[in-house]
């Protein structure tokens, strides 16, 4: 299995099982440079993204040299700029290949993953506010990544804030675009909210 996916799965499961099991993530969080072997996958170990499962909202797919470590929330942004009139535009002129034929949810980017893990560790220590701050950092980096909303919703539920948890889950669902796993995760969460 692709290492990115295998990295994500435990996290995903963890999110699904919130409330039942205490998260067992216990990674150093202060200095990410110390932890190359404890969790974060360095870009060089990354291989192709998993097969397409749903159109990822933010990502018109990376191309060329960047394909070896896809960034879900941060698509390539270079495109030709053809000013109407010659003006002092500082935007770069970089040609881009044909648009991608399909987009995939490649999972959270390493930065996102790192922040989500950090949040997770804080949450398990009972530092809800700290966890929230880390997840909002993650959200700013990739505001259309459904995983961030899933974890945010879980955290709010853990904080017994059902109203926000529900809104966040619905927002995440609106970004999941029918991806079966993510949709199931959000629906399970919404069902749990209804039950409680």
């Amino acid at each position: 299995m692709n290492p990115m996916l295998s990295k994500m799965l435990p996290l995903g499961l963890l999110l699904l099982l919130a409330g039942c099991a205490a998260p067992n993530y216990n990674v150093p969080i202060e200095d990410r440079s110390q932890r190359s072997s404890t969790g974060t996958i360095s870009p060089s170990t990354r291989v192709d993204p998993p097969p397409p499962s749903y159109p990822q909202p933010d990502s018109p797919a990376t191309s060329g040299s960047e394909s070896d470590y896809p960034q879900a929330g941060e698509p390539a942004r270079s495109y030709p700029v053809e000013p109407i009139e010659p003006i002092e535009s500082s935007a770069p002129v970089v040609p881009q290949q044909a648009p991608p034929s399909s987009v995939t949810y490649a999972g959270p980017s390493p930065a996102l993953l790192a922040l989500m893990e950090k949040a997770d560790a804080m949450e398990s220590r009972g530092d809800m506010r700290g966890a929230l701050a880390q997840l909002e950092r993650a959200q700013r980096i990739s505001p259309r990544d459904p995983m961030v909303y899933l974890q945010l919703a879980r955290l709010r539920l853990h904080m017994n804030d059902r109203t926000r948890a529900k809104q966040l889950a619905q927002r995440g669902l609106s970004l999941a675009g029918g991806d079966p796993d993510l949709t199931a995760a959000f629906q399970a969460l919404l069902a749990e909210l209804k039950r409680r």
Partner: protein
Amino acid sequence: MAKKSVKSKAAAAKAGKAKKSGQRRSLWGLLFKLGLALSVLAALGLVYLDASIRSKFEGKRWALPAKVYARPLELYAGRDLRADELAIELKQLGYRMVDRPRRPGEAKVQSWRVELVSRGFEFADGAEPSRPLDLRFGDGRLQTLSSGGRSLAVARLEPVLVGGIYPADNEDRELVKLDQVPETLVQALIAVEDRNFYTHHGISLKGIARAMWANVRAGRLVQGGSTLTQQLVKNYFLTSERSLARKLTEAPMAMLLELHYSKDEILQAYLNEVYLGQAGSRAIHGFGLASNYYFGRPLDSLSVDQLALLAGLVKGPSYYDPRRRPERATQRRNLVLKLLGQQGLISEAQAEQLSRRPLGVVAKSSLTKGAFPAYLDLVKRQLRKEYRQEDLSSEGLQVFTSLDPIVQRQAEASLKQVTARLQKHHGKKLKGLQGAMVVANSQTGEVVAVVGDREPRYQGFNRALDAIRPIGSLVKPAVYLAALERPEQYTLSTPIEDQPLQLQNPDGSVWSPNNFDKKAHGRVPLHQALSRSYNLATANLGMDQGMARVIDALERLGVRRDIKPYPATLLGSLSLSPLEVSQLYQTIAANGFETPQRAIRSVLTAEGSLLSSYPFELQQQFDPAPIHLIQYALQETVREGTAKSLYRRFPDSLNMAGKTGTTNDQRDSWFAGFTGDYLAVVWLGHDDNRPTPLTGSSGALQVWAELMAKLRPASYQAVPPPDVQYLWVDESLGVQTEQGCPNARLVPYIVGSEPQRKHDCGIQAPVRRASDWFRRLFGG
């Protein structure tokens, strides 16, 4: 006789004496009384002086303005960031450019690589350590990030301090604490200004004598005898008239200060108070601010020669102005260096070597304080809802905002460049043209930039918040959204009558709206009526539904004003500020979730404990399905409709969405639009409401396009909700058809509302047309 005469003389003398002594006595009495009165007056005066100098000292000492910070720059592999943009951020943070960065606050910038040692910062959510960072760039992005040879997932720089909240007199200081001030500066000041500072009691006779001697020897005024304490007193009253009385009270006030406060307290006050230059109408007080003003970096990062220059400036900031009088300034600096050498504070060789250095003053003041007044205005308004003004301007609160200085500067430049271009093109019809912009994250609702004037440093009328103008066609998505919420009645393909109509106002008057091109277009599909911004079709659609539904949609989109149930509301007589418009479009960009627009992330006390945080909030206001249909029509607007000129500048692969707005007689030119990451609203118009030659498309859209070209935005990928399906249809026949058939168009429908009849045109091989942008919705 003689005796008598003697007697009488004596008597006379006695009488005279008595008279004299009586006179003398009354004179003494008078003098005594006068003396008493004077000393009472003097005592009263002293008490008064004491009170006034103490209140001045205490007031200044404790008034710590709130510090406002920009967002910290997050660094991670894959981020859209160029080395030159990072270099601007580093410059604002006052990093020193060196060949081999080793100490915190040092950096080396190349086009493909930036090496730096971050300073670290205490954030509300924890400390970011100071550490070396190695960043490689390519393809407009940050490619890799590592620290000490190890790859790093994410790091953040310290945030740029963008301003403060000051008391009403609007003074601004960059307050420094004594323990943050380089020792060399203090030594240099004492060496050149007041050698006996630590021993005298406020005034120094030795100092006066030495100064007099020096002046006599030189034959002119070369030294003043004022102690630092006297100078502090003088600076406290610098704005008042420098009268003789003031001069006379200076010495007693200095002595009184010494009586009440320690040398360190006085020194700290002095360091923050002394006048060091003039930036336009703004006085530069204190070494903290002066350091930024002259060298563009914090005081604790200055070199010895730079500190010597600042210490030398005290004597005459205008006479020794290093920008206008570099030769005088150099001489003065070298004198200070020489004194430091003579007193053994640095070696003489070092003094000699430092004297050969250039002044190192930055060409233009890079003061970031007051740099973004419109954004700061928004921050202050949000803060004032929760904090008292006194607390804001005196408690030293730390305010963390979402301001992105890179985006802010690009927004300012875009408005400036495009309005200048438009003015050049249209001549005096656009004389005095004004504009405003709000830029937010299209998903989180965080406001990243606010421009309230074409001259962005101008602290006047903040149009982004206070120009309440009719929004014209920007209101239309609400009319169509209200319709599309009823899929059993309306789909994107529903034919709408673009025909003249007469509307009755509540006062009984009749109103006949017109299209911009003065033509009626007959039956047009609903999405086309919106993307072409047809007024007649919109009025018909609105009246068919009733005003109540439209107003309800507007309120759920985030409008908090009283909306008049008049037909003219349908075509944008509603007046809103650019910030309010931004809120309205935020809800559309964020799939129907209303996300309050935030400028502040958190507020901390001076000591760093959290006072309040402003988490991400959201409230679902619309079902994602009708919002998705509106997003489709707003993408069509920029692809085929009123804003299609946009794609003359951008590649087809970039998805954007937006709406133009033009009001009666073209008094207002609007554009509101969003990409994957940014939402921006632009308004152009005249403050006096004069007509312009601009439409939303020829005016505001141009500014928006310029900004987006600079921002290199992410594509907006609208995610179809599960209950929306895309079908090929022939709208002229109202049937489903095949890809490649004549008039075939891919249109989203809420499941169950799609056309039921199917029509196969018999073409096997699909033909692609350039205008089929909607294929790209799926990356096709």
